[in-house]
């Protein structure tokens, strides 16, 4: 017995990790797939219904409208990240990388909200945007633009954008710091050559740096996609179980939560006899949505590895 492990010492190193990781990360994925084939609420009788949960999810108007609304909002968050946050992160990172004056101060204060928890971020934005005590409305009133003063967070069409603003304010720093790390790896020789050839400050970013930090940017975009699909806390804190007025800030993870755990809520009431079955069904659809994109990313990464 002892000689067996003496010859294979790696087994002892791997076993604790394999056990816990399998039990809490891998097994639940398969278990969720299996549970999605049952009609069950966690306590009562468990009936095998084959793929009927999936059929119901995609044919029931009530569920489907929530699904498309939540998926649309999640995709909006993702699009906003790619088109607004990522470019901002690149520009900010480049400024810090090239050591502008006060770059340290800027980096620290822009990163700091990362350490502020979601309910406080939401609270801070309420202080800015609230109708009565909000700073922004009062500024409008002071400069005489009373018509512009509104209960901003109560406007359903704007909900997703304000929520996005909060997410970005809280989370812009990590990606920015990743990018600074990647920029530090870019060889200085190429930059110097471009500088001597007369390439301007921003041209060097576009032509020399960006191609070399492509992998980090693609990674950030994938992280943003997974985040948009699984983000829960901002929607929940801002809009409660239902995801705001008319589901204006409902997202996929909140939809999943409402169906699987939100039995006390009238919205979840309709399928509460099948909360676990339908909940895991939604989770599995989300698995597929995330897996498909991750796979694309992995194929791309292994291809670019071969090119090198």
């Amino acid at each position, binding site marked *: 017995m002892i000689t067996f492990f003496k010859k294979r010492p790696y087994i002892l190193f791997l076993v604790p990790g394999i056990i816990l990781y399998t039990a809490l990360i891998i097994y639940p994925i398969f278990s969720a797939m299996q549970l999605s084939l049952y009609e069950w609420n966690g306590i009562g009788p468990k009936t095998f219904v084959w793929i009927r949960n999936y059929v119901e999810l995609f044919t029931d108007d009530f569920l489907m409208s929530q699904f498309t609304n939540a998926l649309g909002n999640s995709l909006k968050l993702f699009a906003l990240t790619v088109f607004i946050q990522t470019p901002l992160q690149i*520009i900010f990172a480049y400024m810090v990388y090239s050591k502008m004056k006060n770059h340290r101060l800027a980096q620290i204060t822009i990163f700091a909200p990362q*350490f502020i928890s979601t309910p406080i971020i939401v609270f801070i934005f309420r202080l800015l945007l609230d109708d009565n005590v909000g700073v922004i409305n009062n500024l409008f009133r002071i400069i005489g633009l009373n018509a512009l003063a509104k209960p901003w967070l109560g406007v359903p069409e704007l909900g997703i954008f304000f929520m996005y603003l909060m997410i970005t304010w809280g989370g812009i720093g990590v990606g920015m710091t990743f990018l600074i790390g990647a920029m530090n790896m870019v060889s200085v020789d190429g930059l110097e050559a471009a500088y001597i050839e007369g390439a301007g400050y921003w041209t060097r970013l576009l032509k020399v740096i960006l191609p070399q930090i492509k992998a980090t940017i693609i990674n950030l975009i994938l992280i943003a996609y997974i985040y948009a699909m699984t983000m829960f806390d901002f929607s929940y804190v801002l809009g409660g179980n239902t995801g705001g007025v008319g589901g204006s800030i409902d997202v996929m993870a909140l939809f999943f939560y409402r169906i699987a755990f939100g039995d006390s809520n009238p919205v979840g009431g309709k399928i509460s006899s099948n909360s676990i079955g339908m909940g895991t069904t939604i989770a599995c659809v989300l698995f597929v949505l995330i897996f498909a994109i991750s796979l694309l990313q992995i194929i791309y990464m292994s291809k670019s590895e071969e090119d090198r």
Partner: protein
Amino acid sequence: MHRDLKSISAQIVRWIMLLYAGFNIAILIYVFYNSLRPRTDFLTNTFGLSTNLSIGNFIEIIVKDGFFRYCLNSFLILAGSLILSIFLSSTVAYGLGHYKFKFKRFWKTYFLIGLMFPIQLSIVPVFLITKQLNLINTFTSVILIFGSSISMSVFLLTNFFANLPKEIYEAAVLDGAGEFRTFVQIMFPMASPVVFSMSILTAVNIWNQFFVPLIFLQSDAKKTIPLLVMKYTKKLLMTIDSAFAVSILATVPILILFTIFSSQILEGIAEGGVKG
């Protein structure tokens, strides 16, 4: 090299960043100032200067609500999860990176799967497992969940251990150290910079985690700081004095720590990002 940072466009971007930074500082001061005001004072005279500043709101949160208990809860969860995840990920990564054996590729891929399946999605089965083990409403459940999410750390550390020169290991074994002692006393300490940068990211994530504690910690005595904050910020105007105070208590100590260690933390994260 960056002499053309003086160009107008670069200066405009610089001022935007500094304004942004100034806004962040101003908002913190605004919240701090208002945390010293009684509720009626804030509501009736929101933007006026107060004559009635006191630390009463803080005392209320600390004494009546037992704020430090929530701190302790958050801290225990963070410490437990970090210790568990560092132990699991470094042993697994050492096993995968250092040794050669059959099916190594399989296990490497196996540990990457977790990156693609965030815990939120498999929470129902995890909930059922913890319920069967009678671990609902215990820190153990949350610590086990956070501590087992090791995909990213395993990935980073495996590469590190694989690239360590074999001579160090061989010298230690020649000296008569066993496999485990070689790992604990020689190989693991060499990885500590990577472990540090990895732990910073993990720690930030765990500290602010909302979803898992919300589901698994149901009694008030077990709740974490974000869940306490939620109690006061939910009904904005009714409890706004407490909301101000609790926001400051939950934020300022962490921000001070961050500012003190900012260069190590930011460098650690920058390095972690490059390797990931």
